[in-house]
């Protein structure tokens, strides 16, 4: 294996792990500004993580080994997921290990462990959160797969790096199939990352929770890992969105001179995307849980339509 590739891989993974909470902080900050609040600052997630790591873990009497194992599994899955997506460079060595289908499987693995851990303690809220999360996921996951399949058909590959290479170097014009896929992807992103309108990340009312309900029993280092993994998940999704729908400016592996530029471009795209996400969350209201299937069903249909459009008109 070429050491240059490996170095660029490690650099990218480390960058993603380190900056994932920053993205979350940026989105919260933008939301605060849009709501005329001053906000806690973009570094707040780091402070929270640091505080949580200091504390003693408090876990329920009957929590089993699965409950304590799950944060590590979830965190490891997210680290691998973010390593697969090309952030600043293509030709990543890890990318060979997993294509987009495996990426979806990886996200599912993390989700299943989180849901199982939520059911482990046996409170009403835990199983409520797990059930809702699995409901959302079992509709969002096929939609995400279908979103991936359109670019996969275009580039004749399900490798993200190959897809990005292909998409970044093709003629710049509007592709209706990709437009359908982009809208569907945005809807899946909102659902999978527990954002408004599907879930409210800042809620304090147990009965309306989805993601938070699953984490109710976690504290200290376990909660820190779960929160960090959550930030990494948002980062992964943002990176996938950028890679599929705005891939310009990415560096090839080993081109060290291109790296600062690629990092700058990425930062700009993420900042823009984060602000857009905050705007979207500010102008929409959370929907009832049984409206979510319609929302995700629409995402699914749009994604299928995108694939059909490509097959029919090759555009």
């Amino acid at each position, binding site marked *: 294996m070429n050491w240059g590739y490996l170095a660029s891989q490690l650099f990218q993974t480390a960058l993603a792990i380190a900056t994932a909470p920053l993205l979350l902080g940026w989105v919260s900050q933008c939301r605060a500004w849009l709501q005329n609040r001053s906000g806690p600052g973009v570094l707040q997630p780091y402070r929270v993580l640091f505080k949580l*790591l*200091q504390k003693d*873990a*408090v*876990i*329920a*009497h*009957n929590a*089993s*080994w*699965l409950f304590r194992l799950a944060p590590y*599994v979830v*965190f*490891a899955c997210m*680290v*691998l997921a973010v390593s697969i997506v090309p952030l600043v460079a293509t030709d990543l060595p*890890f990318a*060979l*290990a*997993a*294509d987009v*289908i*495996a990426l979806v*499987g990886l996200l*599912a693995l993390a989700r*299943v462990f989180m*849901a*199982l851990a939520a*059911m*482990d303690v*046996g*409170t*009403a*809220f835990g*199983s409520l959160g*797990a*059930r*809702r999360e*699995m*409901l959302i*996921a*079992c*509709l969002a*996951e*096929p939609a995400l*797969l*279908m979103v991936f*399949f359109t670019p996969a*058909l275009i580039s004749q*590959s*399900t*490798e993200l790096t*190959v897809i990005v290479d292909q998409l970044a170097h093709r003629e710049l014009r509007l592709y209706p199939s990709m437009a359908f896929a982009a809208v569907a992807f945005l809807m899946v992103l909102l659902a999978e990352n527990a954002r408004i309108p599907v879930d409210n990340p800042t809620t304090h009312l*147990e009965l309306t929770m989805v993601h938070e309900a699953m984490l109710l*029993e976690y504290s200290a280092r376990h909660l820190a890992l779960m929160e960090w993994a959550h930030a990494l998940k948002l980062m992964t999704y943002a990176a996938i969105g950028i890679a599929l729908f705005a891939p310009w400016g990415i560096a090839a592996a080993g081109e060290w001179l291109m790296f600062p530029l690629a990092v700058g471009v990425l930062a700009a795209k993420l900042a823009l995307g984060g602000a857009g996400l905050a705007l979207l969350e500010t102008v929409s209201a959370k929907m009832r849980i049984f409206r979510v299937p319609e929302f995700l069903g629409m995402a699914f249909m749009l*994604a*299928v339509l995108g*694939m*059909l459009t490509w*097959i029919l008109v090759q555009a």
Partner: protein
Amino acid sequence: MLSLQIILAVAIYWIALGVAGLALRCTREAHARLFFSLGAAGSLVLAVAAFPALSDWPQTLVLPLGLPDLPFHLRLDPLSAFFLLLLGAASTGVSLHSAGYFQKGGGGDIRLVCLQYHVFLAAMVMVLLADDGYLFMVAWESMALASYFLVTTDHRHAEIRSAGLLYLVVAHIGAVAILLCFGVLQLGTWDYTFAAMRDNALSPGWAGVAFLLALFGFGAKAGFLPVHVWLPEAHPAAPSPVSALMSGVMLKTAIYGLLRVSFDLLHLQIWWWGVVALSVGLLTAFYGVAFAAVQTDMKRLLAWSSIENIGIVLAGIGLTLTFHAYDMSLLSAFALAATLYHCLNHALFKSLLFLATGSVMHATRQRSLGKLGGLIRRMPWVAAMALIGTLAIAGLPPLNGFASEWMLLQAFLLTPGLPNSYLNMFVPVATAAVALVVALAGYVMVKFYGVVFLGLPREESLAEAHDAGAFERLGLGWLALWCVVLGVTPVFVVAALDPIAQMLVGATLRNMLGQSSWIFLTAIQPEHASYGPMVFLLVIVGVMAATFLVVRRFYHGRMRRSAPWDCGFLGLNARMQDSAEGFGQPIKQIFEPFFRIERHHPSPFDRAPRYASKLEDNLWYWLYLPIVRLAERLAGLVAVLHHGRIALYLVYSFVTLLLLLVLMT
């Protein structure tokens, strides 16, 4: 070279074992321990003997048994070797588990169970070895009868007897269709050896008839959509190791039969067969998973999940047929490898899960999901093994279920090159259906594992549950081991399946495998897609270990226990957890048109309010009950002739004779 003889010897050994068990008198414990572990040794020998035959030339043998002039023809080729390997690998685990499971009472006489069990195994071997229609049907029927007796082991319960009867009836309707299929295949030569059938050149019309008969006949055994009804009844009725064998292995013999007829015996394939198989498969898969999500009995849930997996396998066969009909043999070989891989995986993880339910039932005497819970603390071994099975069947990397589903989805993505534009438009819909089924399977399995093993125990008696014994653990461990091993070594699996692809569709995947290292499985070409589960496993475990060390090194590992968060309500109890109904409720609501739901809501003025909801299969009402009513009406018409007076019957005979005389002259 001697594989065929060894395999035959294993079959005879099993029958001898069953008969010897009948003769020997000893305690139930000793009997189960001795005979089932001896049976497991036979399974292991079978698997080891079948493995080299996977890449060997076909071996044949003629046994001078059966009717005069109708000797038994046996043949061992890569296809049958693969299914024998599957049988050996799965039944090793099942037999080991049985050695522990059948020690405890309940059900029928252990000696009879032991005989039927081993005859069942031997009959499956003969089905896979048969090389003429006659032996095939004899073995097929022995398999059906042996499994019928096993299903009705606990025959004192009326519902078990009726489940057994339903199974027997559907199995025989299927057998008739298979018999008719062989009748079409022999094309008037009256030679029922498979060798002769291979040489017959059927017209496309007759070939289509043969294919549809095979699809229906083998479908009745496998559980394809309209004839799936026996599965959710028979699996809960049977003892768990028997359910494991039936679901894990017997359903695969039907898949074997379908592959044998459609690719080996029939010399041409037509594209619409693929579309039919694909549509039926996807419908079956979706129907199965939707019903699995709303079940409240753990074995019934697994039975519906078997229907789902069989549907996925049939969709794979459909894709293989379509590619093959258009002479895209490389893609066809890829789809076939995915299909067979999924068969093997399903045999392993479904057996594992059925055995785990057996251990749970023994420990708790409960089968209903509403009365279980929290067993991970009382039964850590079974819980850990079942977790592996759950993750595998939910199609999560890096376990084996994901590897085959990955290949299948890749095969779908390769489809748009087909020269038929209508088919190409069908592909996104089919792919979407597969994606939806796979995601719903994850939902179902979280429900299964979460309700059985996690949370608080829903009944007080569960506090006395104990972990499984050594034999049961060994059986579960064997199957769980292979779920992991087959998951991380997909390249070896596909390489082992290559001779079958060469035999059935005439293309080799060797080029595809040669381009990649053993770590990465590729889909036809490395730039198209690759998947390296070993890297997955190593990175995940590595990151977990590193995170653990970093957190411990720089912070601390202090932990204390406390009561869970209850919103200050102070009255949370085990009944407030999600029940199986509760967990399945969203699916019930979203996919309501698929179910036939009867709800009884209490009115606000009820003194003793009761809420009841019954959920049934629509097909009973749309298909089966009308047929039953029709049969009853016909029987009623015929009954008009029955008066019970001898004079009248003599008149009937006289009229018949007269008619015959008139017609003959």
